[in-house]
């Protein structure tokens, strides 16, 4: 690598008995990056973070932090810190004592500890009088901030997050996602975050890694993962999607069992004699009945209409299964349930996934 990352994993394997949770992970995380690992439960993301903070040992492979190999270093000697899913705030201590805990371990003077704790309360937008509050007196969002303040008091090289927002209600989660992103910018620290929520990952991250069965399927910036997934798994994991099988004949002509293809349409990633899946996100589908020319069209019957808040989702029943369409509220389709419609979209708004359907 030309610019070695702050954190480097080389061939990291973790086995539990006969079960291999991580199958040879290579990863580079840059200094100051907000890096998110997304995956369904059982994908290995929790195992991964436990190895990174030192709560479990790697079976094979190496973990490097700057120029030090740390995979054999116990958790208490690593310069990293984690915000737990349960937050792990100490219930027998006050907010102040919680925040000062890492500084107390480092044997810093009480006055210095107190000053830093107050700085952190300010940074996390908690009133200073919270210093003397008990943890049980704090709300969910406040506890979240206390846990963050405590982790920052440790002054880690990397701050790890193990799904810390998963237990909160929707509105609070949305607020805290933005605050976390903001905090990342203000502190300039390297954040490594794991979650099963795509939305959370998209809002906050510089780069996202999609994990499946102990391996990374794709590592890229959020936009690229959304618009150009490398596999069906990533495409389906990253929100609603329509996938159509395609094939290019020997002459390069595109054939599809489900779509009508306009003659002359070509896809750069689809070589003659190969097949794969054409992905189109629901927001790129248009009604073709009212004219306009499209590279691909298909017809079906409006099956259902669901309000998603600012958007409306339609399910269109076709001969080959359901197709999902999403429209902004003010652009709602002028078609009632049960009505026959023709949908169209253009090659520019699609992404080709070169794998067998």
């Amino acid at each position, binding site marked *: 690598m030309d610019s070695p990352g702050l954190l480097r994993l080389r061939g990291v394997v973790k086995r539990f008995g006969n079960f291999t949770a991580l199958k040879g992970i290579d990863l580079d995380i840059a200094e100051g990056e907000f890096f998110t690992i997304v995956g369904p439960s059982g994908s290995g993301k929790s195992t991964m973070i436990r190895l990174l*903070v030192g709560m479990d040992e790697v079976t094979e492979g190496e973990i490097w932090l700057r120029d030090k190999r740390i995979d054999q270093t116990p958790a*208490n000697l690593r310069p990293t810190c984690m915000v737990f899913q349960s937050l792990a705030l*100490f219930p027998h201590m006050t907010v*102040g004592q919680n925040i000062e*805990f890492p500084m107390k*371990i480092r044997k810093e003077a009480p006055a210095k500890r107190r000053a830093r704790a107050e700085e952190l309360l300010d940074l996390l937008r908690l009133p200073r009088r919270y210093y*003397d509050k008990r943890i049980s007196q704090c709300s969910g969002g406040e506890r979240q901030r206390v846990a963050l303040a405590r982790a920052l008091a440790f002054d880690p090289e990397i701050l790890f997050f193990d799904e810390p927002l998963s237990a909160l209600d929707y509105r609070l989660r949305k607020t805290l996602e933005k605050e976390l992103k903001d905090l990342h910018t203000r502190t300039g620290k390297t954040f490594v975050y794991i979650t099963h929520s795509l939305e959370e990952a998209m809002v906050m991250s510089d780069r996202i890694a999609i994990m499946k069965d102990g391996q990374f399927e794709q590592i890229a910036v959020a936009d690229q993962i959304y618009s150009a997934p490398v596999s069906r798994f990533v495409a389906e994991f990253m929100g609603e999607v329509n996938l159509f099988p395609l094939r290019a004949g020997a002459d390069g002509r595109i054939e599809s069992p489900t779509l009508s293809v306009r003659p002359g349409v070509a896809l750069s990633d689809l070589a003659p004699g190969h097949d794969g899946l054409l992905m189109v996100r629901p927001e790129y589908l248009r009604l073709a009945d009212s004219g306009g020319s499209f590279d691909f069209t298909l017809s079906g019957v409006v099956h259902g209409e669901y309000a998603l808040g600012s958007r409306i989702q339609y399910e269109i029943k076709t001969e080959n299964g359901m197709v999902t369409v999403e429209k902004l509220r003010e652009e709602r389709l002028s078609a009632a349930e049960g009505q026959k419609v023709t949908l169209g979209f253009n090659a520019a708004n699609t992404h080709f996934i070169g794998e067998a359907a």
Partner: protein
Amino acid sequence: MSTSRSTRIVLYVYGVIVIAFLYLPLVSVGFASVSQARYLSFPIKRYSTKWYGEAMASSTVSELLTTSLSVAVLVTVISVVVAFFGALAFARYHWRFRTTFQKLILLPIFFPQTVLGLALLMWFNSLGIIPTWKTAVVAHLVWIAPIATLIVAIRAYSFDPALEEAARDMGANTVTILREITLPLLMPGLVSAGLFAFLLSWGNFPLSLFTTGADSTLPEWLYAKMVSGYSPLVPTLGVMSVVGSFVLILAAFAVAWLVRVNRDARVAQD
């Protein structure tokens, strides 16, 4: 939900009967202890505190109290230490035969104590150990340490292991984690376990009967006196024992309260 008037009356009456059932025998013992007569008969003709005076002055009584107290204090200390590590082993670590071991450990609680006492006595004999109050400590522990472990384990199971992991992650070593996190959080469990251990040992008769040898604890002496040679010292010592236990419980609450007040004060000062 509101209860009807008749239901309420039934509930009150039931409550009073339960309380009477529990406390009348104790109250009658109390009365017996302040009767001047040598033999127990109701109604009491002359009240007197003379038996309390005699109990205080008696060297037998002070010897009994010393033995009972030594046994109970040792049993309490050892049970709490064993319970602390045992509970952590159950709640924090996964090892082969853990659940089996857990059940085996609890089994002595379900043993009839007289059988257990006899078995232990035979065991001491075959090992060539002469029973004294020290062997009684061992006997009590067989029965009480599992109970204490159970009490601490309930507490240990209910606290999130992530708390210890978080402390380690922030640089704390094993000793610091124990001092700053584990011990303070288990403290309520340890205090109740200690209290139970003390009271169970203090009042124990069947195990002591078989395993104290020539020494005698308070319950043993009380029993012996009831069987042959009743004296009003029996109810007197009974009352003193109950009052002693009660004072101990109050003291434990007082300590817990003081710890909380002190902690809050320290927090406010910081």
